[in-house]
């Protein structure tokens, strides 16, 4: 037996290594999609850093990242532009990846963390801070993080009744979501108009005026959680077939689901804390990635890249096209992301990928 064995069955190329014992299906389209998304994200990132009220050449931007060049350029790049771009990048990636996990675990394309209450919990905590002054000293970041994590804990605890299922989590999530939407709505109606405006501005998802203090926790969270998620992805692959099949394949269903949910909730909580619940990204990014890559379920890496590209690109659009309005990124994600998703839906050519 050779070290590498390549077989073609049913139009797919499978590669099997003798040592270490591993096998995989080659998905050229997925690899191409990831590469394309990564390249596009990188270009948008460069564009974010180089343009603005004070345009810079790439030759000035890149040294300035490491503190080279004149003082003004370094200030603009490292203090003003880089943190904002990084938050867009990292938060988008986190939303995209956690959305992919939620959609796969619940086997429901609508089950993004916004639909089952996790980001709503964060929203209620932050709006309470703005309107009532509850824990306002903690800042929106801590409040949002705490709100999201506590809500996720609440949903899981309420959905637990001698074990749980993806479906039960979705249903309990709907109920919990409902309560927090109601609470947020109540606070907004009770608020003064300027408070309501501030609250709605956060609830839409906003990168205006974010600095390094928002980047650091998010970056650390991603550095820990993304590798964990990739390690857990074989379990995810089995769980997409449902609890019984996954159990038959030897997956410890309850523990695997808990681990995956913890990682996904962590991602979405830190991203929400930094950028607010940017609408639509967690839901659309996995669905867009799935259709671009032609895979049967949302691919993790491509979803993350897609989310990053959406948030970064939409923030750039908001900054450049509507510069005097200071439009938050969450307003633009829906306006730009939705037509793209619609276009992908309309031109779907296979029933498997067209959904």
């Amino acid at each position, binding site marked *: 037996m050779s070290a590498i064995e390549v077989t073609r069955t049913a139009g797919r190329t499978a590669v099997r290594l003798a040592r270490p014992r591993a096998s995989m299906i080659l998905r050229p389209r997925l690899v191409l999609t990831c590469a394309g998304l990564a390249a596009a994200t990188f270009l948008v990132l460069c564009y974010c850093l180089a343009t603005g009220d004070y345009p810079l050449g790439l030759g000035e931007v890149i040294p300035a990242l490491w503190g080279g060049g004149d003082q003004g350029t370094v200030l603009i790049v490292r203090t003003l532009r880089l943190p904002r771009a990084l938050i867009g990048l990292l938060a988008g990636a986190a939303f995209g990846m956690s959305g992919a996990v939620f959609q796969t675990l619940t086997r429901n394309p*609508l089950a993004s963390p916004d*639909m089952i209450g996790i980001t709503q919990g964060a929203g209620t905590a932050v709006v309470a801070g703005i309107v009532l002054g509850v824990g306002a000293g903690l800042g929106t970041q801590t409040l949002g993080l705490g709100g999201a994590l506590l809500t996720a804990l609440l949903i899981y605890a309420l959905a637990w009744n001698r074990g749980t299922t993806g*479906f039960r989590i979705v249903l309990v999530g709907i109920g919990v979501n409902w309560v927090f939407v109601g609470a947020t709505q109540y606070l907004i*109606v009770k608020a003064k108009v300027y408070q309501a405006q501030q609250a*709605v501005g956060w609830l839409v998802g906003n990168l205006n005026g974010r600095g390094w203090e928002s980047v650091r926790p998010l970056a650390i969270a991603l550095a820990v959680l993304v590798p964990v998620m990739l390690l857990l992805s074989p379990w995810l692959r089995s769980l997409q077939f449902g609890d019984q099949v996954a159990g038959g394949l030897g997956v410890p269903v309850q523990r695997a689901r808990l681990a995956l949910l913890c990682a996904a909730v962590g991602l979405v909580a830190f991203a929400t804390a930094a950028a607010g619940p940017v609408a*639509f990204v967690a839901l659309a990014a996995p669905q867009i990635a799935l259709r671009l890559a032609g895979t049967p379920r949302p691919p993790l890496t491509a979803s993350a890249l897609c989310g990053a590209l959406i948030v970064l690109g939409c923030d750039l659009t908001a900054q450049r096209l509507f510069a005097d309005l200071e439009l938050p990124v969450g307003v633009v994600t*829906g306006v730009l992301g939705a037509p793209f998703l619609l276009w992908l839906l309309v031109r779907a050519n296979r029933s498997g990928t067209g959904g």
Partner: protein
Amino acid sequence: MTEEIRPPVLAKTAPAPPADDLPPGIPAGRPRVRRPVVLAAMTALLLLLCLLSLAVGSRQIPLGQVLSALTGPHDGEVGAIVWDVRVPRTLLGVLAGAALGVGGAVMQALTRNPLADPGLLGVSAGAAFALMLSIGVAGVSSFYGYVWFAFGGALAASAAVYVLSGLGRGGQTPIKLALAGIAVTFMLESITRGVSLVDPQVLNRYRFWSSGSLTGQDTSTLLQVLPFLATGGLLALALAPALNNLALGDDVAASLGRRLRLIRVQGVAAVVLLTGAAVAVAGPILFVGLVVPHAVRALTGPDQRWLLPLTAVLAPCLLLAADIAGRVVARPQEIDVGIVAAFLGAPFFIALVRRRRLAEP
């Protein structure tokens, strides 16, 4: 009502005890509550809540006086309060609740998705968008003007969703319908939010509309939307057996002789008429339509021929109870019905889905 119910389609080939309404593979839990009993109990509850809704308010009027005002002439202070304020409010609660509940149940069946709410086709986002346009651009300021703008927006948005989801080589599938709906919803919502962030006046109107309220409509407006609600309701009820077949999957439904395109057109029309009219007059209280069908399903099983009527009775109960509670809790102020419904309904709902073995829609 019971005479209209024909035996289940599957029972012709395989007679089965009532507990076997669940799809195969899901073991039956405790024996189901008998459905006629549930229907009777819920109807009684609804009537009781209607009476309460007429009797309770910021001004306390004894029930006897309320009843005599209802049966007697329209004059006098009590008569004016009852006929001009409380009757329209109660009627609106019943109509909007039933419409949103049935709309949600049909939407969940059409998309086979438990997360589908009656606004999934872009209905409420379209209504809000049109409302924003009417306030911000056209300068409409009367409630009467809002209603028709909102209804028109709802119709336009959902028509767009329906057409978009049917384009492309795959044709229409439940997932495409749901995803197209949510994409259009997010797009319109984003624009509405963007405008409301820039224009505080729009935000101010929008935030009050969007929390949902049963006040502010007079009987004549209700009578004008009633034909739409009635048409939508009839379309939905007539669709129930077909929706039962659709639950088995598109292929099975087609092989049982159902015409999928017809089912979808009829279902979408029903949802849009019901939800569009309800959202236009009462605001987007969509969670009622998302949650009540699940609650009914957990109580009496997934048979649409029972699910739709039971939802039409239970959803108004929730809305009226929430409205009454909202009047009492913060007297003399009131809390909007959408908000109270969440706090009142969600604990029940969560307890229900925790307790039962669940059948997916």
